[in-house]
């Protein structure tokens, strides 16, 4: 067998800090501790760092700094966008349109709203995971106050037709949110090209720190805050700002903007190699998500006659980190809502793993993973002759 390697292939769950981000964060941790709301020297120094980070994040997505609100992560950004827009629109109506394959941060929030007097339409997706913009148009009602569709799916990587959906939302003057946690830093994300009013992003998916994110709020879009208190972040998000985290996000945004074109081409190349290798050596393996309209760093396969958990644990023993379903729920053994929605049978869905590449991965890593994966799949299938 080949020499043991350490291969982290779970970048959609979280990424390591970029060395430049780490350096900047450690510098802040050591040198700037003021409360950005304080008027004295320490506070002003902190405030300056906060605003620099805001400028950097805005630049990454083509927004203006004053349209960026810092949050505690993608989950809070999604909650703030969805609940905030829903409640701000209550006088107009209580209908929300979303898709059936959203991240739980959007989906569970919609379910909560549905229990509290809102009416939610969950649009289906096709077998590749696409939402049809025509379906969005048909679902719109006079009392629709929010459309929220993710930019790309975190499990199967399919990139949704956000610009078209945004155009439809704008025609009808309906607030439009997209969860871009998986796309920012991987494919071009520009709030005007996407026609969005609200956009969520998270630092730890782009080599920034965990526990910090941002919500883009287009000027003029009305949302209600989720948290109440000290008035920070223009009253949209009170609480003493997570300065080291925000500085880390700012630096990560800067690095992402700079490295995006090169890195994402490299990710695409690595994923193509992985996909090709799996298809050649395990001919009945099924690639989930659309073959082309997918995130450059995402590979998601189902292997009938296997269990994702067994593949995960087996690969882990060989230093390879992957995930089954989405990371947040990889403890659960049921089929994820996304795999169910694209029509996988429970048997096939059970044998699904997601591999997401990143900065540290090289071609040799891919070849190492291929060997390990093929061997594991074959071994598992041998246990069970039925297959």
């Amino acid at each position, binding site marked *: 067998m080949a020499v043991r390697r350490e291969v982290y292939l779970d970048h959609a769950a979280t990424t390591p800090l970029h060395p430049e981000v780490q350096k900047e964060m450690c510098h802040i941790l050591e040198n700037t501790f003021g409360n950005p709301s304080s008027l004295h020297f320490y506070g002003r120094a902190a405030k300056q760092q906060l605003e620099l980070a805001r400028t950097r994040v805005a630049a990454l997505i083509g927004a203006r700094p004053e349209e960026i609100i810092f949050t505690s992560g993608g989950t809070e950004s999604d909650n703030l966008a969805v609940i905030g827009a829903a409640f701000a629109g209550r006088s107009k109506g209580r209908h929300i349109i979303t898709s059936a394959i959203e991240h739980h941060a959007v989906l569970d929030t919609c379910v909560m709203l549905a229990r509290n007097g809102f009416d939610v339409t969950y649009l289906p997706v096709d077998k590749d995971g696409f939402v049809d913009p025509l379906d969005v148009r048909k679902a719109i009602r006079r009392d629709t106050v929010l459309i929220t569709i993710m930019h790309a799916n975190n499990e199967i990587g399919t990139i949704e037709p956000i610009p078209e959906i945004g155009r439809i939302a704008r025609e009808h003057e309906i607030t439009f949110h997209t969860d871009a946690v998986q796309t920012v830093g991987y494919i071009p994300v520009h709030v005007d090209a996407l026609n969005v009013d609200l956009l969520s992003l998270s630092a730890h998916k782009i080599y920034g720190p965990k526990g910090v994110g941002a919500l883009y709020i287009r000027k003029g879009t009305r949302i209600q805050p989720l948290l109440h208190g000290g008035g920070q972040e223009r009253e949209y998000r009170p609480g003493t700002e997570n300065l080291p985290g925000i500085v880390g996000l700012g630096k990560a945004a800067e690095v992402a903007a700079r490295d995006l074109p090169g890195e994402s081409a490299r990710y695409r190349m690595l994923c193509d190699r992985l996909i090709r290798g799996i298809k050649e050596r395990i001919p009945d393996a099924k690639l989930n998500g659309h073959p082309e309209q997918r995130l450059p760093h995402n590979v998601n396969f189902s292997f009938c006659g296997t*269990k994702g958990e067994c593949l995960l644990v087996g690969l882990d023993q060989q230093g390879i980190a992957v995930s089954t379903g989405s990371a947040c729920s990889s403890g659960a053994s049921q089929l994820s809502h996304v795999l169910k929605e694209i029509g996988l049978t429970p048997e096939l869905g059970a044998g699904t793993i997601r591999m997401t590449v990143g900065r540290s991965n090289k071609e040799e890593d891919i070849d190492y993973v291929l060997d390990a994966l093929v061997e594991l799949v074959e071994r598992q299938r041998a246990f069970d002759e*039925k297959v």
Partner: protein
Amino acid sequence: MIIYSEKVIEHFMCPQNAHSMPDADAEGSYGDPSCGDYLTVYLKVKDNRIEEISYLVFGCCASIATSSMTSVLAKGKTLEEAFNITEEDIIQALDGLPENKVHCSNLGVSALRSAIENYLNKNRTEDSYENSNSSR
């Protein structure tokens, strides 16, 4: 959050006696209705003792480790001893299972018992014949 013991990982990575047995004296299966996982146990019995045991399994890591450990524990035991192996015995031999994986040990116990019953049923007539022989 699943964290497996080293023993579980060891048996999962290198399961003992994992193969089918076309010439088995008996076999028994059990499927877990909640997770759909499935285990078939094969036995060769001589003088009321399990001489050989093997299995085919489709299931999670814990079910594979459970199957392997069940076979290790049962091998060489009398049918009665083997029938009395409990989930607890298997879990203990595996240095524990995560809480949400405890049910997987049931796969091993149930399939083994079903195989033993299958053997006893098949051999009831011969048994009684042997019994009557020896009593003579």
